[in-house]
């Protein structure tokens, strides 16, 4: 029997367990210590670990991300929290030019075991600058690993793996999912990086997704079931490396796939999944792989525009019916 906890608590537990286990792990970011985290993910950690290991930074994303890189090159295992990934854009120089490239540049002399984590994706009516999705951006960069997951148990196990990983790992969470509850195992466990997970099995269509769009897929699958369509829902959990084998296995059974991805459509996770699946499972596909993305626009504030922008179960169902060639 496990315990029911929130995503926020699961992530906090992962960090605390790893900090108890390994003195070289520390957490830094804006409001992580005295305020207990902008979204309370690090609640109680300052009390337990003290200001040496739970560190409030000024608002200086480029600077403290770089301090994370340097500390990682010199034997520590930093966890760098971004209040949201939107602000990590300031730090992309350090993430992309340094964290991702240190091993290659130094021909293996220096590795960079740093974790960059924070929420990604739209979170209500936050407008253009605060609503972006980063899996595709970071997933494009060789040298990085990228995780995006909101299931409490998986997120906890993946974050623990990320902290122990010897490569730089970017973790995408979700502001509006921190309160999501789920069952986590009682005992210590890890979830390996690079494995997708089937969240619902089905036989007629494979829905591939990650982060909070998995919930949109599960809702769509529920609706489709009422119409006699059996949807399999796969949560990628890790964006880089991509677990193509699990997707191909599923398509062999369902022969159809829709990718649901909150990123913008061009050059994104959905494009990559569609390419890989058509390459490796072409003979099993009975229809082109389709995708449902956020709109190819910036996300404005008004509620009507947010609704128009985001994937939702109706849009997913429409895409499913198209690849199944059934009337909407």
């Amino acid at each position, binding site marked *: 029997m496990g315990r029911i906890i929130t995503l926020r608590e699961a992530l906090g537990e992962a960090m605390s367990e790893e900090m108890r286990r390994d003195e070289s792990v520390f957490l830094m970011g*804006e*409001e992580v210590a*005295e*305020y207990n985290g*902008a979204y309370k993910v690090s609640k109680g950690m300052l009390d337990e670990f003290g200001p040496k290991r739970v560190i*409030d930074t*000024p*608002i*200086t994303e*480029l*600077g403290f991300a770089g301090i994370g890189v340097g500390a990682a090159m010199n034997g520590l295992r930093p966890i760098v929290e971004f209040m949201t990934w*939107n*602000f990590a*854009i*300031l730090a992309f120089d350090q993430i992309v030019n340094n964290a991702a490239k240190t091993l290659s540049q130094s021909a293996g002399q220096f590795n960079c075991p740093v974790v960059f984590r924070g929420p990604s994706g739209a979170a*209500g*009516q*936050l*407008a*253009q*600058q*605060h609503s972006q999705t980063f899996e595709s951006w970071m997933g494009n960069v060789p040298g990085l690993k990228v995780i995006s997951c909101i299931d409490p148990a998986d997120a906890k196990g993946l974050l623990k793996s990320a902290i122990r990983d010897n490569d730089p790992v970017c973790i995408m969470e979700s502001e509006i999912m921190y309160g999501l509850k789920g069952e986590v195992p009682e005992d210590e466990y890890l979830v390996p990086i690079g494995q997708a997970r089937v969240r619902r099995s089905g036989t007629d269509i494979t829905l591939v997704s990650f982060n909070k769009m998995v919930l949109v897929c599960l809702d769509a699958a529920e609706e489709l079931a009422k119409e006699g369509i059996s949807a399999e829902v796969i949560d990628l959990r890790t964006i880089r490396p991509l677990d193509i084998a699990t997707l191909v296995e599923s398509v062999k059974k369902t022969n159809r796939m829709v990718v649901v991805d909150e990123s913008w*459509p*061009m050059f994104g996770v959905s494009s990559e999944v569609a390419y890989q699946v058509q390459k490796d499972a072409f003979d099993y596909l009975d229809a082109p792989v*389709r*995708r449902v*993305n956020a*709109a*190819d*626009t*910036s996300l*404005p*504030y*008004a*509620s*009507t*525009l947010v*609704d*128009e*922008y985001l994937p939702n179960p109706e849009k997913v169902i429409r*895409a499913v019916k198209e690849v199944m060639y059934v009337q909407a």
Partner: protein
Amino acid sequence: MADVAEKAKTKLKYSKEQYLEWYHIMMLIRRFEERTLLAYSQQKVRGFCHVYIGQEAIAAGLKSALKPEDGIVTAYRQHGIALMKGASPNACMAELFGKATGIVKGKGGSMHFFLAENKYFGGNGIVGAQIPIGTGIAFAEKYKGTHFLCVTMFGDGAARQGSLFESFNMAMTWKLPVLYICENNFYAMGTSVNRTSNVTDIYKIGHAFDIPSEPVDGMDPEKVHEAIEKAAKHIREGKGPYFLEIKTYRYKGHSVSDPARYRSKEEVEHYKALDPIEILRDRILGSNVVTEAELDAIEEEIKDAVDAAVEFADNSPLPDPSELFTDNYMQEDYPFIKD
């Protein structure tokens, strides 16, 4: 009676109209923000929402000391600055309500008002991002050979971003007509100024670049006005940037969702006793050139304007969903990916 006679002796430094202008804009901002908070609690306003209550004297001093053609750019705590720059309360409230009649058609919300015709270059949501942008706006003024400047505003938290140091250096090297204003309200979310740097007198940062830099009492519109007037004169003479650290206080939490437990009650009470609107009101009434009835009439007018703004916002339509695809490119037939 002796009391009144005593007060009658306080002489005002500026014209009656000047004080009434300050009183009007500060009161408008205060009432507008109070209505915003109410509307937020009614879920008519959504998303991140940061109000300006406590900081109104800065807007007042800017209004009187600047030319209309001077540009201004600030962060997300911007409703008051937009109103000061001439944005209509109707359009601002409608924006907060996410309506098509908003100042940016419901597309920006609380953090992003813009008003090109009045050279209001907007509210920016990324801490520190507007510092180089304001520097660039000033660069363009110099390039075009105007005598206008750009006011570039940011918080104490933003003063730690690298963008500030890079901008200060270029602005001073190239003698750009930019007035940097740090609104130091002593907190960046839950982080007090003294936890973000050893340099807690933020104006001193300017000295590292030889930028003339001064602290200013931001609870008094007169002092803000004088500091800005002096700085603007220096800038218009082509001598390059100026930096004012205006000390102020926000009475509410960082945003509507912040209970602000990191501040003591005593501290907040201390600043509320320094309320810029109360101070101004006492000063005006103490002069005996303005009657209480005149101030009451201003308040009444503002109350009506804010009521009207809420009604306007309530009755306005939401943007049509097709608006999602407008204003992304100047190119009219841009080929969006639609599946």
